[in-house]
């Protein structure tokens, strides 16, 4: 059935309102969209890494999750999820469980790219039937905007502050989506919030209903860390895609598929200028940072196109 935004939005919310995330936060938007991708009637268990989402959505005695939910620690959500999935398999085998459950693991970039990376890699390699969604807001936002390995070069973060001799983070962003593709799991995708959410919805649905492990990386901006007014969120996501900073693509059974090629690839400034974390890049004397960022994006975009063309 073709995607219909109205129909999808009329489904009962599985990530209920009342959670304590900031206005303009990408994490909550990602969760609503992910949970909408579950077919009505299908049950799910959500495993969440410690982070903004966890502390804002399940503060005792309230929870925003209509489905069963478990949080244990920052770095172990994939292993916890693997345990739940193992339990599901044995209970089904013993005839002690009739219903079908889907297993959804969610973490921020800190819990995914960094401290939880071992757990994620292990769970994917073992082949648990689960989906890992990363809401990537490119820093440790829950503890106050410290850099992560997902933070892009030149971003101003509280552990890579801009100063008289510093232009922000020195290292490039880790290419986690490609690393997950290198696990040769059945489904890997990269997406964000665009227009009517068709791209995110379809990728989430495909990831959830693909047997075996799947990984979806969702760029999910943070108004505090990226320093933008809440209403600019859709524009930032759009510019991330139109500048090819965050290309939309899938790796299906090892086949790399580019989902969107901008008619006219926009310069990287169009993405950077919307965010306070890159403000210093536009100061006289720092022109080189933008040139350098553009060069990096161009190279990565080139590589991705080659990969997708060589299938």
């Amino acid at each position: 059935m073709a995607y219909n935004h109205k129909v999808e939005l009329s489904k009962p919310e599985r990530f209920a309102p009342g959670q304590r995330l900031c206005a303009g936060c990408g994490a909550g938007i990602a969760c609503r969209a992910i949970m909408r991708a579950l077919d009505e009637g299908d049950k799910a268990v959500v495993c969440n890494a410690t982070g903004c989402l966890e502390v804002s959505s399940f503060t005792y005695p309230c929870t925003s999750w209509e489905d069963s939910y478990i949080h244990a620690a920052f770095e172990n959500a994939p292993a916890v999820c693997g345990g739940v999935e193992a339990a599901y398999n044995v209970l089904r085998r013993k005839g002690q469980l009739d219903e079908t459950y889907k297993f959804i693991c969610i973490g921020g970039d800190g819990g995914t790219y960094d401290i939880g990376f071992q757990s994620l890699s292990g769970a994917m390699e073992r082949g648990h039937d689960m989906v890992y969604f990363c809401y990537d807001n490119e820093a440790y936002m829950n503890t106050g905007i410290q850099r992560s390995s997902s933070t892009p070069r030149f971003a101003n973060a509280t552990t890579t502050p801009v100063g008289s001799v510093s232009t922000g983070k020195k290292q490039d962003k880790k290419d986690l989506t490609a690393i997950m593709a290198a696990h040769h799991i059945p489904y890997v995708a990269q997406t964000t919030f665009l227009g009517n959410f068709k791209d995110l919805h379809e990728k989430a649905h495909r990831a959830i209903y693909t047997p075996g492990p799947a990984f979806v990386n969702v760029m999910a901006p943070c108004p505090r860390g990226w320093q933008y007014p809440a209403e600019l969120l859709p524009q930032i996501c759009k510019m991330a895609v139109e500048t090819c900073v965050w290309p939309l693509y899938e790796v299906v059974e090892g086949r790399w598929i580019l989902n969107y090629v901008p008619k006219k690839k926009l310069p990287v400034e169009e993405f950077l200028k919307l965010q306070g974390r890159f403000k210093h890049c536009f100061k006289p004397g720092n022109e080189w940072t933008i040139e350098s960022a553009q060069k990096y994006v161009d190279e990565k975009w080139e590589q991705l196109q080659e990969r997708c063309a060589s299938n």
Partner: protein
Amino acid sequence: MSIRERLSGNEAVAYAMRQINPDVFAAFPITPSTEIPQYFAQYVANGQVDTEYVTVESEHSSMSTCIGASAAGCRAVTATSSAGLAFMYEVLYVAASSRLPITLACVNRTLTGPININNDHSDSMGARDSGWIQIYAENNQEAYDNYLQAMRISETPDVRLPIMVCQDGFITSHAVENILLEEDAAVKAFVGEYHPEHALMGRDHPLAVGPYDNSPYCMEHKVQQAEAMKNAKRAILDVAADFEKTFGRKYGFFEEYRMEDAEVALVLIGSTAGTAKACIDSLRNQGIKAGLVKVRVFRPFPFEEIAAALSHVKAVAVMDKSEGYSAAGGPLFAEVRSACYDLPNPPKMIDVVYGLAGRDCAVQDVERVYRYLLKIVETGEVGPRYIHMGQRSAREEVLGNGL
């Protein structure tokens, strides 16, 4: 009918696991517990169990997998030692505070620093405040019997706490001894099935586990956990009574060996008890009233019961097989000495830290301790309260050669 066999401690625990047929086993190797997941892997390969055997990439993930599986309503087990247990440290607390009755076979090995694979109790003693029940074995038979009792204790509704079943690395885990095994059907009937009231799947309502628990509620939850640990005392004795009725072997919080009229006594944990018993028998032949309290249950700690057992003794040496670096003695000493504080005439008490990182402890070493206690009784002078035994040193050991 019990079955006479010869098994190592590791094999005995793996055998018990096969008989219980747990739902999920999260496996990661570390010496000296590695054999347990290995034996179990063969049971899986031979189709002798229904267990989901999850070969994780670390001990942190093995405990995390157990947490997920247990919250999903399953019996989840794992085995580890030393650095493996230390790597689990954070999630041990998560398991206990989430009230998940996970069973961990701990094969005691010293903690790294420097790396060493041999036995002492520093690994599980490091986890003593994590909210896990801890039961220790003297020998292979006890490791097997304790494992058969573990799940019923931890799954008791007003307990619901994870449990660590400990045995001494190599000394117990790798030594092959005679053992009485029980029949599969009898074990299954004794252990029973596990169907918790709440679980992530298959219940009328969804379940949320592991909240952000702010100060208006969190202390209540911690106090409930503390109450559960108190309740575990009753559960341990109830299960032991049923075990004795079913299989004929008696267990309690601790074993008292020739304590009725003992004037000097040791308090210790684990395999050294066998050495101490041999020593006691020989001392008794010489007319020396020596006794032993072998602690089986360290968490919950049997405070009043230990005090009662030591109330008539003149001098006690607590033997700690782990160094607490408190500058005042090991963890067992701290508990036992505190337990005896309320006695009208508490025994004179010293702490002997011994056997660290696999340093051997022979009958003559234990005898040195008893001789030292006799000297304390004779002179009334305690001398240093916290001493080490068995190490090379430029200074003469406080215990001397004792003979």
